[in-house]
């Protein structure tokens, strides 16, 4: 993954992305930094955000509140720059988000069965983001795979990795099996939408 230097201009560009996201999407990323890099690492992120003109504090992030969608992209880009995280780390951050997201604990009723989880997934997306449409294209229990499509959503390539980890982990928790996946289509690769192929044994 190419290292990206984040400037005020780039930050403003991220912030111009339309749409909103729940504070939880920001907070779980920063919690990962806190666990891996400690208080000092978190402080660096807060300082960098302030330097870029967005003085966000970890303790002030309200998980249920809506924040500009661009802030998610900016936060991830800052974390990638500061700690030189690669694709796999962002997949792991996505996985960890599932574990630490209050949302998942609040909306557990959707995990009663795989079928119900699949049915509720698009609604779940919209509980996190004000934009974008998540569709379950295929969910083959017999063959052990699923195809998820995300339309009308384009944030940052890092976020694509993050979502791959996130979807994989949720599917693992539904299927109680190890899930591997890949993003087969991506708006940053010239496709019209994102498409994730996930399989399990």
């Amino acid at each position, binding site marked *: 993954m190419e290292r990206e230097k984040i400037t005020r201009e780039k930050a403003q560009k991220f*912030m111009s992305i339309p749409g909103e996201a729940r504070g939880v999407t920001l907070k779980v990323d920063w919690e990962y930094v806190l*666990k891996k890099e400690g208080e000092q690492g978190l402080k660096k992120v807060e300082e960098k955000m302030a330097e870029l*003109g*967005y003085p966000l504090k970890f303790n002030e992030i*309200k*998980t*249920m*509140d*809506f*924040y*500009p969608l661009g802030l998610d992209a900016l936060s991830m880009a800052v974390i990638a720059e500061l700690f030189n995280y690669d694709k796999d780390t962002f997949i792991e951050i996505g*996985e*960890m988000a*599932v*574990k*630490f997201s*209050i949302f*998942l*604990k609040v909306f*557990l*009723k959707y*995990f*009663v*069965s795989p079928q119900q989880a699949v049915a509720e997934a698009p609604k779940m997306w919209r509980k996190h983001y004000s934009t974008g449409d998540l569709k379950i294209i295929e969910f083959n229990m017999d063959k052990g795979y699923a195809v998820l499509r995300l339309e009308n959503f384009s944030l940052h390539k890092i976020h694509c990795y993050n979502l791959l980890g996130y979807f994989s*982990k949720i599917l*693992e*928790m*539904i299927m*109680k099996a190890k899930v591997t996946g890949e993003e087969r289509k991506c708006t940053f690769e010239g496709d019209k939408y994102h498409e994730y192929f996930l399989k399990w044994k």
Partner: protein
Amino acid sequence: MNPFDFKRLIKGEDKDKKISLLLTDLASLEDYINDLLNFSPLPICFVSPLGVILETNPAFEKTSGFPSEEIIGESVEKIFDKQEIARLAKETFSQGLVAAKEISLLKKDGSTIITQVFTRVRVDEQSRSIGYFLGLFDLSGIKKTEEELRKIQEALLNILEDTEEARKRAEEEKDKTQAIITNFTDGLLFFDKNHNLALINPKAEGFFDIDKEKLIGKSIKEVSAYPGLSQLVAFLGKEIKKVSRKEFIVRENFILEVSVISMKANNVDIGDLVVLHDVSREKTVERLKTEFVSLAAHQLRTPLSAIKWSIQMILDGDLGRVAQEQKNILGKTYQSNERMINLINDLLNLARIEEGKYVISPAPVDIIKTCEEAIDIVSESMRGKNIKFTFIKSTEKPIKVFADEEKLKLVIQNLLDNAFKYTPKGGRVVLSLKETLKNVRVEVKDNGMGIAKNEQDRVFSKFFRTREAVLAEPAGSGLGLYMAKNIIESHNGQIGFVSEEGKGTTFYFTMPKKDLKPV
């Protein structure tokens, strides 16, 4: 302006204020829930209906050993037995809760602990089960304590069993010992280290016609006040002197042989055991036998003396001429009769000794002279057998002892006679007399056949003769050395010998030069 206050620009101000307030409340609520979970010392997790762990608190992480990031999202079967947790989940969903059920928890380090779990199902607004909370209580400490207590209890029971067994064994041993003591054919008295009477067995009670109940625990002084025991205590002394097989005459025809043994336990004196062996019957038999021997000997001696003088008269020709052949036969008859008279005399002496009638009449005696007189009797025989005889004395002056001269001469003569009989022709016999400050030592040394080692213990027993002695001289009575020992000991002297088979024997005795105590 806060860059995140954009909503206020596009929404109504009141509505925004309310939403902001609600979000703040939600955040506070989230913090409260997190704080509560973090605070709880009870390990708690939340499990989805699919059996996936969705939430854990620090106590749970500590107990299971799994950090939250490793256990959240994992199947609950990772830490609990598949069947056990399936039963628990089923019960939880069907009954709404499970309280205090024991279940094993598999920790990250592979160890298993016993836990007590509590579950409560969580339902949504439509009363559908959407998972369950699971709290657990680590019983490993309690189980460990229980196990330790069980082991301690087991160990205590074992100790008690061992103690009981040991007690029974001790009891059995005590019973055995008591039975032995009770049924012992000898009388037993045990005085503890303070000389208090601690034990009397029935035999001892019978000996003295006493009741042990009245005597146990009494001091030896108090015991001495009992009529039946006063003589015995006087015999033993207040300090209970050690004696071995010493005769104690209780009354006429009732004689005990008394031994006092010092008892020790772990090398510490615990008291004295007095063993009383009834020898009355043996003594009576011995007395009767002695009386019979005495009577028989007296009855035999008169006719034998008559025979002696009759033969002597015939041999002297008082009754006419006797042919040589007849003389030879009569001579042998005379010698045989003489041996019989000697034997009868020995038997009479023996009877006297045993009856205590063998009277010693001591007077100052020159032991050199006594030796020379004894030598005169055997010297002719020695020469006849070509035995080289030497008399060695340490002084030419008379050595005075206070003794019964006849009996002393008898002893010396007996020793010389034995040396003569058991020394081959051409052998050597030495009589030596040594004077020390207090004693006189008389030795008769020969280079004869000697005495076999296994027979040496019995040399001074009455009627005993060694196998070699019988072969060499069939006529002996076996009473000479027995009498010699009695005579020497009656003079407060000591008698003994050293001998080596085939090389010779030295008999010796010592006699005090003065102070002969009356016997």
